[in-house]
């Protein structure tokens, strides 16, 4: 495709949305629907042993609808099932196919190829868990007599009279929950990381008890999945775990590029 005819740059010409980079031996993502409305087909732009996953996009239309976000992830996750994939961040658009070849694949092809080789047949899995709020609040009351005491006190106070104490109570509970999130995420990583090539904890957000990503060799995938199942069983009634994957290595691609010694 590097013989593609350069497009005229003009307001009306479609631009080129870039999803990620794969090896040029990767299969064409024939069925994948790209971003935009209507979605354009996703094609490979091959050059020097690597290939960019791209689709045409209207440069005057805004991007970011739920469908766009899903399309971006879906293209990458689908391709990643069949071939090592380096995902780009959502929203990357360049002028045309020629620019993809000239500015992206030509200067950085070697780096991408090295990173793809390092990645090999590993895929990312995300493990997320949500607390059963009742269970974790009970734990907190049991572990912290001071919180339990303040809880009893504020129950008896009117809304106005107990305002300050309630804020204090809520803050203590919030801190205790944050501490539990950290502990539980550490436990998750400690248990699963030995089965994986890399692990990365995401910053704890409000509604998740645990949130971590793992890079898993295809040969150890069953073992990893079994370990997650076991952990889900251990945490049953306390944390509801979810396992997402296999996915493109969103959380690890920056490191892969760095290790490949290249990048801009």
């Amino acid at each position, binding site marked *: 495709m590097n013989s593609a005819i350069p497009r005229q740059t003009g307001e009306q010409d479609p631009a080129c949305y870039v999803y990620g*980079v794969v090896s040029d031996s990767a299969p064409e993502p024939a069925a994948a629907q790209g971003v935009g409305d209507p979605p354009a087909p996703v094609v490979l732009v091959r050059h020097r042993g690597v290939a960019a996953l791209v689709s045409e996009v209207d440069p005057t239309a*805004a*991007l*970011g*609808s*739920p469908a766009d*976000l*899903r399309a971006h*992830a879906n293209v990458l*996750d689908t391709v990643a099932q069949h071939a090592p994939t380096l*995902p*780009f*961040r*959502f*929203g*990357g*658009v360049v*002028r045309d196919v020629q620019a993809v070849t000239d*500015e*992206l694949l030509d200067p*950085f092809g070697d780096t991408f190829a090295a990173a793809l080789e390092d990645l090999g047949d590993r895929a990312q899995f*995300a493990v*997320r868990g949500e607390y*059963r*709020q*009742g269970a974790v*609040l*009970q734990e*907190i*009351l049991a572990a912290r007599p001071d*919180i339990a005491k303040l809880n009893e006190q*504020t*129950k008896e106070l009117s809304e106005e009279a107990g305002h300050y104490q*309630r*804020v204090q*109570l*809520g*803050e203590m*509970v*919030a*801190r205790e*929950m*944050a501490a539990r999130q950290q502990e539980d995420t550490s436990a998750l990583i400690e248990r699963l990381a030995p089965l994986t090539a890399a692990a990365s904890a995401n*910053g704890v957000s*409000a509604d998740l008890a645990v949130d971590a990503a793992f890079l898993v060799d295809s040969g150890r995938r069953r073992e990893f999945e079994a370990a*997650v*199942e076991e952990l889900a069983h251990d945490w049953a009634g306390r944390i*509801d775990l*979810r*396992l*997402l*994957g296999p*996915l*493109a290595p*969103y*959380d690890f*691609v*920056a490191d892969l*590029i760095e290790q490949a010694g290249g990048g*801009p």
Partner: protein
Amino acid sequence: MARPSPSGLVDVVDLILDKGLVIDAYVRVSLVGIELLTIDVRVVVASVDTYLRFAEAVNRLDLKQDPEKGLPDLIQDMQEGGAKKKTTGALEGVGDTVGNMIDRVRGHGDDEDDDLTDEDEDEDEEDQEDEEDEQEEVEEEPARRPARRRAPAQRKRRER
């Protein structure tokens, strides 16, 4: 354990937003600045209001009852979702799961292309995220608040 398909919007947003290689760093000359309407992922403000919700939740907790009783509706949703989410072994999750999760997070039932970019709150969630140490919130309203952000694609975005 649940094995939902990551087509759930919340999961997709968490997975891909601000992650991956930044094309700006590779391609400069031919970059097309396209308007991005992205979603505010983790706006969580430690506020008096948040603390009061925690206090209410713990105040309502009846130690003699089932742990799940007496808590806000959030819990009910979680339980229901949890029961349906037992899809052990299947790589592709159940469609219900996605809907349930979005219901819970967004506070209503439509997980399709609804209103994600329709709120006019201009919030810079990245800064807020950094500034707030406390990230706790118990509420059934969206923890992930839609925000309209006008960010040209060539804007240099901060690496995590």
